[in-house]
């Protein structure tokens, strides 16, 4: 009984901020209309966020599926070195790498570009994604593709026709993690984008709090919080099982 009371009290504590924010944003629905006109317009920022997330998810899936297949099934020179270099991304502070990335993207003409930002997100997702995909491919019995290879398929056809279907759960997990990371990230777009019309939602909504004229409109701010949070909450609840499983097998290799 005490246990249940404690649990319930804690659940109220954890859910209260979310419920309050949703309620505060709806108290005056015109907050949403006002936010839609904020700066370059909510549509612009949301489109940027959707584009960046879509490119990040697609890029992460393609690169890590091909790479995972290579690491699970082929021997090639430099294999271990490349794997270690990829895992080393986890060791380097985000902040350390973003300032040279800002300069580097300037050299290759991708500064202030959504494509450049997405490529950076793909890089940050790779350690987790490559690890997940390699394990997923390794778990498939070799017989499955051997049959196809013997029947005259090239490795790419075996990969695209047979193996990709078998690793679908891992692909969903990798995609979900890539979406949550790129949709929510604040620091990378803050540094890599410098033109208001290319801002993603987190940067745009944070800039509402730093208005130089007039008071901050808190209702509008909570509307912004909800626009950012609701897609993640829905996706998380729908795909919760994948998240938890992927988390245990990938993030926790210990």
């Amino acid at each position, binding site marked *: 009984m005490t246990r249940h009371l404690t649990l319930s009290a804690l659940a109220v504590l954890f859910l209260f901020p979310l419920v309050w924010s949703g309620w505060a944003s709806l108290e005056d629905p015109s907050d949403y209309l006002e936010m839609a006109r904020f700066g370059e317009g909510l549509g612009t920022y949301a489109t940027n966020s959707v584009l960046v997330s879509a490119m990040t998810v697609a890029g992460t899936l393609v690169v890590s599926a*091909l790479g995972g297949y290579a690491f699970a099934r082929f021997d090639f020179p430099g294999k271990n070195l490349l794997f270690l270099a990829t895992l080393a991304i986890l060791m380097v502070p985000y902040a350390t790498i973003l300032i040279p990335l800002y300069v580097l993207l300037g050299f290759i003409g991708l500064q202030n570009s959504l494509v450049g930002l997405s*490529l950076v997100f793909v890089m940050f997702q790779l350690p987790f994604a490559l690890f997940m995909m390699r394990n997923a491919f390794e778990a498939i019995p070799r017989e499955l593709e051997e*049959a196809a290879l013997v029947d005259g398929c090239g490795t790419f056809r075996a*990969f695209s026709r047979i193996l990709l279907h078998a690793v679908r759960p891992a692909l969903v997990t990798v995609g979900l993690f890539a979406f949550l990371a790129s949709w929510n990230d*604040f620091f990378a777009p803050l540094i890599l984008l410098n033109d208001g019309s290319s801002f993603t939602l987190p940067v745009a909504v944070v800039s509402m709090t730093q208005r130089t004229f007039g008071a901050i409109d808190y209702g509008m701010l909570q509307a912004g919080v909800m626009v950012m*949070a609701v897609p993640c*909450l829905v996706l998380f609840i729908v795909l919760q099982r994948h998240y938890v499983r992927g988390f245990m097998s990938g993030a926790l290799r*210990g």
Partner: protein
Amino acid sequence: MTLTLTRAGRRAAHGAPPARWRGKKVQGWLYAAPTAVIVGVLFVVPLVLVVWMSLNRWPLLGPARFNAPDNYARIADNPLFLDAVLFTLKYTAITTVLLSSVALGLALLVQERRPGVGFFRTAFFLPGAVGFAAAALLFYGMLNNDFGPIDPMLRALGITHEPVKWIGTPNMALFSTIALVLWRFAGFNMLILLTGLQAIPVEVYEAARSDGAGRWQIFTRITLPLLRPTLALMLILSVTGSLLAFDQFFIFTNGGPDNSTVSMVMVAYRDAFFRFDLGGAAALSVVLLVGLVGLNTLMMRRLR
């Protein structure tokens, strides 16, 4: 069965090893090429570049000039940085202790599979699905004296009588930030600990219980020691995350009041984009990188 036999037969007929793709080095490289390009161009090159930048006077605009070791020498003279180091260490210590304790408490509460436990697990984790920037903005509104609900509630309960300066004094700003971090990350750390708890075999508990061990004894003699690797992982993640704190201070306290909540990463950010000194920021980043790699190596050795 027939299938296996046929394949074995064909294999024998060809006399080739089963993995005919294993020898194809070129193919392996082709599949790994996108990974190699991304890791090489966007990780290895910037890593080398940041070291090179730290040895140069590197303004945001205009040409760079070699000036080593000026950028490093200037770090020691930067009073903002020294304060930031102390503040970040203090924040890291408090956050790590509180976060681990809360996460462990939550994990123990929802450890057993019972009806309804799934709901509580989800409830505790749900803030983790909200982005950190969104969470910081949420707290920014929730703790506002005029708009937020917390102040009126505290006053109605008679706990406070005046508006609380949630981010108005250095200590309160730190306190509020830690509350935000606990709310956002406790569930995530709970999930890490749950995986560790579930790896402990039930038999161990049963054996202890039949030997007459009490709850507290089971916790200190069995749960904690067997949870050590998971606790170590959580500590490393928490310490690393806290030492690199940026979003919460940038969005929630904006480093204030009076620069009392400026973290180390924030100093590097200000150097780069307010003082247009990318070389100085790069030097700070290199120091941060070396310190962090050293610390993590040390922690892994000690905790394992």
